[in-house]
C-alpha cells in the first residue's frame, strides 16, 4: 500500500466483551477511501457493537482502531468525529424537541469554530443556515424544516438521522441499518439517497437484507458470533457455503 492510499478505517484484532459475552471477537477489517463496504450478519452478530468501537462509543477490550492512519483506540468519540468519521444509529437518535432545521443546524455547528459563540444569534450565521437548508433539500426534508423532529413520520426521521451524519462532511460514514423498519417505498428512496452520496466518502453499511447490501457494496464482510466469517466481493460472499447456511437458517426463522 502506498502512502497516498492510507486506509480510511483499519481494525486490528478488535474485541469487545460484555461480561462473558464476546460481542466482538478479534475482528480485523480495512476500508479504503471511497469504498462501499457492507457489514452483514444475523441479529446479535456484533455489528452494532463493532460500529460503537469504531465511532468511539466505548473502547475495545483489546485490539487497535485506526482512522485515516491515526491510532484512535483511546480517543473519545467527539475527537474521532473531527477526523472525518460520522455515523447513524440503528435506533434513531435525533433531537426530538428541536425543529428539523435546528437538528441539522446543530449538526452543522459541530465542527465549526462558532460552536462556542455566545455573542451572536444562529440566525445571523447565514452560511450555517444555508448549509443546513442545502442538506435538508438534498434529503427532501426542506418542506418539513419548521416541524418539530418528533412529529416527523418515521420514514422522515430516518432520513434526518442520515442527514445529521452528513452535516460534518465526513470522509468515512457508518450507516447502521438505515432501511430498518421502513416501508418498501421509503426503503427505496433511502436506498437512492445512499447511492447518491459523494463517491469520495467511504461508507460502511450494516444491512440485514442481503440483496440490498450486495446492490450497494463493492465489498462485503460477514460477521457471525462476533467473528468475521468471511470477507470478499459480493460474488465471493454470496457463493460462500457457510454464509448461505446462516442466511437460510436465518430465513427459516422468519
Amino acid at each position, binding site marked *: 500500500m502506498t502512502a497516498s492510499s492510507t486506509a480510511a478505517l483499519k481494525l486490528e484484532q478488535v474485541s469487545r466483551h460484555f461480561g462473558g459475552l464476546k460481542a466482538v471477537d478479534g475482528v480485523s477489517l480495512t476500508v479504503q477511501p471511497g469504498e462501499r463496504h457492507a457489514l452483514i450478519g444475523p441479529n446479535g452478530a456484533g455489528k452494532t457493537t463493532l460500529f460503537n468501537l469504531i465511532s468511539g462509543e466505548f473502547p475495545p477490550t483489546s485490539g487497535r482502531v485506526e482512522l485515516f492512519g491515526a491510532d484512535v483506540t483511546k480517543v473519545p468519540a467527539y475527537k474521532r468525529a473531527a477526523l472525518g468519521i460520522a455515523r447513524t444509529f440503528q435506533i434513531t437518535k435525533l433531537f*426530538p424537541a428541536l425543529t428539523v432545521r435546528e437538528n441539522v443546524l446543530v449538526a452543522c455547528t459541530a465542527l*465549526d469554530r462558532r460552536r*462556542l459563540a455566545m455573542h451572536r444569534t444562529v440566525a445571523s450565521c447565514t452560511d450555517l443556515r444555508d448549509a443546513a437548508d442545502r442538506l435538508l433539500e438534498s434529503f427532501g426534508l426542506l418542506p418539513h424544516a419548521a416541524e418539530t423532529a418528533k412529529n416527523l413520520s418515521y420514514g422522515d426521521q430516518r432520513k434526518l438521522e442520515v442527514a445529521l451524519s452528513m452535516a460534518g462532511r465526513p470522509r468515512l460514514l457508518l450507516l447502521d441499518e438505515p432501511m430498518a423498519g421502513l416501508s418498501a417505498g421509503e426503503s427505496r428512496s433511502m436506498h437512492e439517497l445512499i447511492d447518491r452520496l459523494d463517491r469520495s466518502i467511504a461508507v460502511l453499511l450494516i444491512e440485514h437484507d442481503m440483496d440490498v447490501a450486495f446492490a450497494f457494496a463493492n465489498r462485503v464482510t460477514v460477521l457471525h458470533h462476533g467473528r468475521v466469517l468471511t470477507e470478499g466481493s459480493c460474488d465471493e460472499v454470496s457463493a460462500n457455503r457457510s454464509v448461505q447456511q446462516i442466511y437460510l437458517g436465518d430465513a427459516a426463522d422468519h
Partner: protein
Amino acid sequence: MGARRLTLLVVLALLVIAAPFVLSSYWVGLLTEVAILAILAMSLDVLLGYTGLPSLGHASLFGVAAYAVALLSTRYGMNFWTCVFAGLVVGTLASAVIGLIVSHVRDVYFLMITLAIGMVLWGLSYRWIPVTGGDNGLSGIPSLEVHAGLPFAGPTAFYYVTLVVFALSAGAMVLLVRSPFGLTLRGIRENEGRMKSLGFNTWLHCYLSFIVSGFFASVAGVMWAYYNGFVSPTYLDLTASSELFLMVTLGGPATLVGPVLGAGMIVLLKNVMSAYTARWLLILGTVYIVAILTAPKGVWNLGSRRSA
C-alpha cells in the same frame, strides 16, 4: 413567539416602567425583588431548561456573590465598583470550581451533587462565623445609590437601577440561548450521546453553561445584597434553591420569560401568604403539585404546543 405574546410583553414592560408612579413603595419593593430574583431564575433556566442540568444548589452561587459584596463593603470599606466586580468574580469563580466537580454527572446525580455542594456552602455561611457572621449574617451594606454616588436615592431609584440591570441581563441571556452555543446546549439536553458522536465535547459545553449561569446568578446576588442591606445564610439554603427551581418549572423552562413570571408568582404568593400563615413550604409544595397537574410545561407554555 407569537404576536399576541409579544404584545403582552410590551404591555407588561410599560406597566413595569410606570409602576412607581401608581404603586406604593411597598409594592415597588416587591417588584424590585421580583426583578432581581427573575435574573436569578433566568440564570437557572439556562442550566435547567436549556442545558437540561437540574441544579438544586443554584442559590448558593447567588449567595456567594452577595457575601462577597457584603464582606468587602462592610469590613473593608471598598468602593462600589470594587464590590460589584468582586461579587461577580467571586461568584463566577465559585461556579468555575464547582462546575469542575458537577459537570461530569447528569440527571438525578447532578441534582444530588448540586444539592450537596449547596448544603456545604450554606453550612460554611452558617458556621464560618468570623468571616460570615454566622446566623446573624453581615449587615450594614451601604445603599447602592449612596455607594455608587448616584444623584438619586430611595426605593424608586433602586428600582430603576434594578430594571436596567434586569434588562441588560435578560438581553444577554436571550442572545445566549439563541446563539450557536445556546443551540448546542439544547442539543445536549435533547440527546447528549448524539452530540458527542457529531463531534461536540459536551463536557466543555456543560461546564461553560454552568459558569455562565453562575455569572448571572452572581449579578442577582450583588443586587440582592444591596437591596436588602444585609446577607444571611438563608440566601443559600435549600429553601432558596427549591423556590428558585420552582420559579423555573412553574413559569416554563427553556423560555426565559417563564422563569420571570415564575419569580413574580412565587414572590407575590410568598408575601401575600406570609401575612396569613407560617407554613410557606406547605403552600409551596401544594402550588408545585397543582402546577404539575394543570401546567406541566409551565405557565408560559400554557396553550402552546411549541417550546424552545
